[in-house]
């Protein structure tokens, strides 16, 4: 603001320099953070050049020869990539449909809860798994669902056949959604509870006097009251469609279920670190994903702006 004004007005160069000098301590506070961001966030962006080059470790990123869009052309013709892209989209869309509503239900139920002490205990249990890494959670789930584990013991006791839940292409995606709800729905519900707490209590009082029952109050007051929150969170998740949950898939996955669960992120990892790597190609796959994600983000930001009046970010 100062800056644009400074460029036009005569004699304002002095004033601009003056403003810079007055803010010297502010710049000092910014300096370490900006430097680290330039190195560790923008540094790798320079490495994106690799997506258009034939990487030669001896020559380095800059001197490796350009090959234009060759990696991208190869990408589109690679069946493994096509399958990873398809899995990513299927899993992400299913998450939007299956996983997204659960925290809303939890939030509403917790919001309606009258026993404050029980509520606090429940909330602690619900939110706890969010703070564990997927390695820990997978460690627990893998032994819990193992053919010798508790779940199959219960099935056996009920006279059912044992099922290998983890290595079953039919159930594995379902397992992803279920375990993701198990781990994260409680934490996500907090944001809805906050929104519910912000609804004017007088609305409820008035509804009670009008004779509205519980369900009608939820339908006509609570849900409309948290609609903006729901919209924002839905749009945000929709903008992350290319991220199908690397941490979870990577740690729960095994060779049997790979065909139904290999997503773009695990695919990039696999071709880079578990095979003879082609850094240029791997980078191209990553870039393909990032660009789509970024474009989706711009679109979703527009959508939120249209619905709620102001954008999420800028």
């Amino acid at each position, binding site marked *: 603001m*100062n*800056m644009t004004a400074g460029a036009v007005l005569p004699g304002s160069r002095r004033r601009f320099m003056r403003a810079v000098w007055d*803010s010297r*301590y*502010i710049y*000092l*506070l*910014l300096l*370490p*953070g*900006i430097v*680290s*961001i330039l*190195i*560790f*966030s*923008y*540094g*790798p*962006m*320079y*490495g*994106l050049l690799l997506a258009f080059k034939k990487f030669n470790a001896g020559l380095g990123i800059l001197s490796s020869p350009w090959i234009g869009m060759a990696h991208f052309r190869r990408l589109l013709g690679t069946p493994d990539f096509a399958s990873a892209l398809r899995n990513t989209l299927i899993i992400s869309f299913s998450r939007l449909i299956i996983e997204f509503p659960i925290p809303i239900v939890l939030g509403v*139920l917790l919001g*309606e*809860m*009258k026993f404050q002490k029980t509520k606090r205990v*429940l909330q*602690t*249990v619900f*939110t706890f*798994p969010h*703070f*564990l890494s997927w*390695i*820990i959670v997978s*460690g*627990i789930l893998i*032994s819990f669902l193992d053919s*010798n584990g*508790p779940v199959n013991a219960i099935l056996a006791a009920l006279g059912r056949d044992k099922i290998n839940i983890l290595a079953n292409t039919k159930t594995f995606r379902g397992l992803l959604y279920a375990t993701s709800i198990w781990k994260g729905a409680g934490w996500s519900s*907090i*944001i809805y509870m*906050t*929104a519910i707490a912000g609804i004017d209590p007088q609305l409820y*009082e008035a509804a*009670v006097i009008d*004779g509205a029952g*519980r369900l009608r109050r939820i339908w006509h007051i609570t849900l409309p009251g948290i609609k903006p*929150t729901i919209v*924002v969170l839905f749009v945000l998740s929709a903008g992350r469609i290319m991220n199908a949950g690397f941490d979870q898939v990577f740690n729960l996955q095994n060779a049997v279920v790979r065909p139904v669960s290999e997503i773009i992120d695990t695919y*990039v990892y696999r071709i*880079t670190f578990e095979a003879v790597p082609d850094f240029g190609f791997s980078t191209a796959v*990553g870039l393909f*994903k*990032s660009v789509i*994600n*970024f474009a989706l983000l711009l679109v979703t930001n527009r959508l939120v702006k249209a619905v709620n009046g102001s954008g*999420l970010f*800028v």
Partner: protein
Amino acid sequence: MILTTKKQGGRNRIDAFDIVGCVVLILFALIIFYPFYNAVLTSIVTSKQYILNPAMLYPRDVTLDNYRLIFENPLIWSGYKNTLIVVACGVVYGMGMTVCMAYAFSRKSFPGKRPLFLLVLFTMFFGGGLIPLYLLIKNMGLINELGALILINGVVPYYMIILKSGFEQIPESLEEAARIEGANDIVIFARVMLPLQMAMLATFTLFIAVDRWNDWFLPMLFIKEGRKFTLQVVLRSIIYEATSDVDAASSAYYENIFSDGIKIAAVVVTMLPIMCFYPFLQKHFVKGVLVGAVKM
């Protein structure tokens, strides 16, 4: 008056909805709780007992053998040490950068504020991706260095933005008063503003500490040498038994004696600090969401 509203199906009477809601929530809580409870039990009973009855409700044949074996593994100890180093340094480094930047961006206007802010914001939504980062770390000679795990995680833009809005809510008069007494921006920041934001600082310190404790992907990628593994990487190598990223020595050590009990004991050892502290710190974590939600 108040009494009558209560009687007429007011908001404080217990009805069928409360019962059903309560049952649903408690069931969900049990489904979350039981696998953890079962994991702890599995780790303290004999493997014979576990095979006999994996779905236990209380422990029988209690033994600490699994833990004895786990703690005989030097990697667990070095893993704990490395993780504590990364958490301690990571919190100071990450928090320091994030808070300083948040305060700077909360100031009214200074030349270059908007472009610099956009520079930071952009990194939230676009990145170089895995391979360029890997090559960068490699070129910097940071492969196999715990330092890499600390340095990469400087400013957390999301926390920065929330902290920034916290600073913006402090009345301007405080800053002006301090300025009249001759304080410069850094003195005002350290002496006036930081003490007013202690609750928020505590919250985000906890978030960053948990983030570093749980980091597993970059450590798995960058740390090749067993005794420099962080706890999560050690755990991963134990759960997925003797994969290529484990030292040959330690995999040979475990090859024959690995059982579910030992794996689960390793899991419990890794989540122990979070399990112990979480119930007491929960309200601070929740506060982080609350301020974040207001921002939204």
